């Protein structure tokens, strides 16, 4: 006797429709894939598939447009918030978001980020903070922790020479144009669920024209950190979360 186990009523999980079948280039243990999936789920659940324009960064997520089947513009390094500003101003009825890493958003694009937030552009910024430049091979970022080793801080980040890890979420939370800032992670299932809720809220606020939202996802980078995926997740929990504590920083309900 054969039983068809694949029944609609038995289905508890499926891949979001907007996440296509292209092989992802991300390393084992990378957080990008999970966050991509959450963004796809939120767009799908909100019915925004034909209304959303995403702005891709330069960094590991530069190829996000290969994986999520929505309209995309690929911005120059750091300029995504400026690109998104114009898209949203010219199309106020659309959902516009940027997806950026910490090198893109907290280093070369600091000006564009701060000013888009300060103008209260009705966009959502998804910020992946893994404390390192992943794509170019693990160099020090503004977000790199003190003492953390990278290819351009081989002895560990030294505050005398390289300053301090930059907390962009804390910085933009102070700006009047910003309606929602939260810092989340995707290292456990409960954390994934919280991050999804945060992305959903940011997208809802954008569509309600409440101002700028930022969802920072503290992420691991096993390749850049030279660790196994499990070691990287543990190291993130024990070190990154101390400097980048999880939770809401601002929510103008």
């Amino acid at each position, binding site marked *: 006797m054969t039983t068809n186990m694949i029944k609609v009523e038995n289905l508890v999980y499926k891949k979001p429709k907007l996440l296509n079948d292209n092989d992802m280039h991300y390393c084992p243990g990378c957080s990008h894939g999970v966050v991509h999936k959450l963004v796809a789920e939120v767009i799908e659940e909100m019915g925004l598939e034909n209304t959303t324009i995403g702005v891709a960064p330069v960094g590991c997520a530069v190829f996000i447009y290969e994986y999520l089947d929505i309209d995309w513009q690929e911005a120059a390094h750091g300029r995504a918030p400026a*690109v998104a500003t*114009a898209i949203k101003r010219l199309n106020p009825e659309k959902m516009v978001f940027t997806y950026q890493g910490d090198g893109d958003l907290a280093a070369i694009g600091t000006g564009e980020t701060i000013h888009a937030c300060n103008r209260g552009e009705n966009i959502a910024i998804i910020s992946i903070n893994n404390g390192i430049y992943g794509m170019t091979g693990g160099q020090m970022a503004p977000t790199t922790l003190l003492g953390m080793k990278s290819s351009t801080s081989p002895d560990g980040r030294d505050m005398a020479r390289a300053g301090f890890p930059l907390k962009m979420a804390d910085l933009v939370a102070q700006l009047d144009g910003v309606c929602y800032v939260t810092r989340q992670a995707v290292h456990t299932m409960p954390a994934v669920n919280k991050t999804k809720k945060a992305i959903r809220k940011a997208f809802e606020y954008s569509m309600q024209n409440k101002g700028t939202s930022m969802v920072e996802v503290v992420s691991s980078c096993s390749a850049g950190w030279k660790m196994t995926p499990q070691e990287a997740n543990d190291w993130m929990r024990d070190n990154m979360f101390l400097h980048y504590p999880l939770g809401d920083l601002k929510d103008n309900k």
Partner: protein
Amino acid sequence: MKENVQLMKGNEAIAHAAILYGVDGYFGYPITPQSEILETLMDLHPWDTTGMIVLQAESEIAAINMVYGGAGCGKRVMTSSSSPGMSLKQEGISYIAGGELPCLLINIMRGGPGLGTIQPSQSDYFQTVKGGGHGDYKLITLAPASVQEMADFVALGFDLAFKYRTPAALLADGIIGQMMEKVVLPSQQKRLTNEEIEAQTPWATLGKPVGGKPRVLTTLELEASIMEDHNLHLQAKYRAIEAAEVRYEEIECEDAEYLLVAFGSCARICQKTLELARAEGIKVGLIRPITLWPFPSKILSQYADKVKGMLTVEMNAGQMVEDVRLSVNGKVKVEHYGRLGGIVPTPDEVLVAFKEKVL
């Protein structure tokens, strides 16, 4: 209908013409001598009439990337600046050219290098015509010589940009931006609806069409052979533009034994020099390139067979002269006379230079 004739600055004419053309968005950052463009737009409140967006960005870098975003949606978008600000925009211009995004870029030139001066100059010819950003790209470059052309070339620039899906530049010196002249303004055109944009530019990212494929605008391609194909596609387009879009003005060239070649303000100055020369019995003509790229090489090459010499007059150290020399390919002597750093030559001194260098 009665003509809309007004007296205004070249910069103001650009602002008026942009609104009347039905431009969707202007993104800029203040810099002398072109701030009147942003000021006039803010004063005219086009968001209340046509719905045009006007945004003062935090930097020229942000402004050009806003143009990228808006152009990527198929909207008519523009930015303006002056020389040091245009240097900042070059990264974005390269992306816009690579991504084949139509838009209008306006440079009201001042003297450089560095912070330079706020006085007029033409020293950004190389930057604009030869490509100031990285990679093999070209900008359709229009050089107005009057306030009327400042207004007219807004429409022409957008028309050409959308015809070829490529950025267009309006390159004027500070005199053309600041001087006041009579201008006949066009009638109001309607801004395009999103439905019209979807129909005319199906590549525009306005949200994935229902049942359709996602649109992706990117300038990244890691596979070199595909990137070469993209470059060849761009080059083929540039050859088509060179074949069809050359514009220039010939002034008293029929019987000319010598030619002056000048654009923008210098062409206006050279018109007076031409009169002075002809009063002395010297048969001088003037070629005024209107498109600096594509450059009017063919007509210059033809005149090289007829005239005894050419003099380019530029407010720079000799930039367009290189294109004139390439055009005539050694058939006739081509000399350059230039003033630098914001100094404007007089008709008399141009005549003296002409006599010394060419006659």
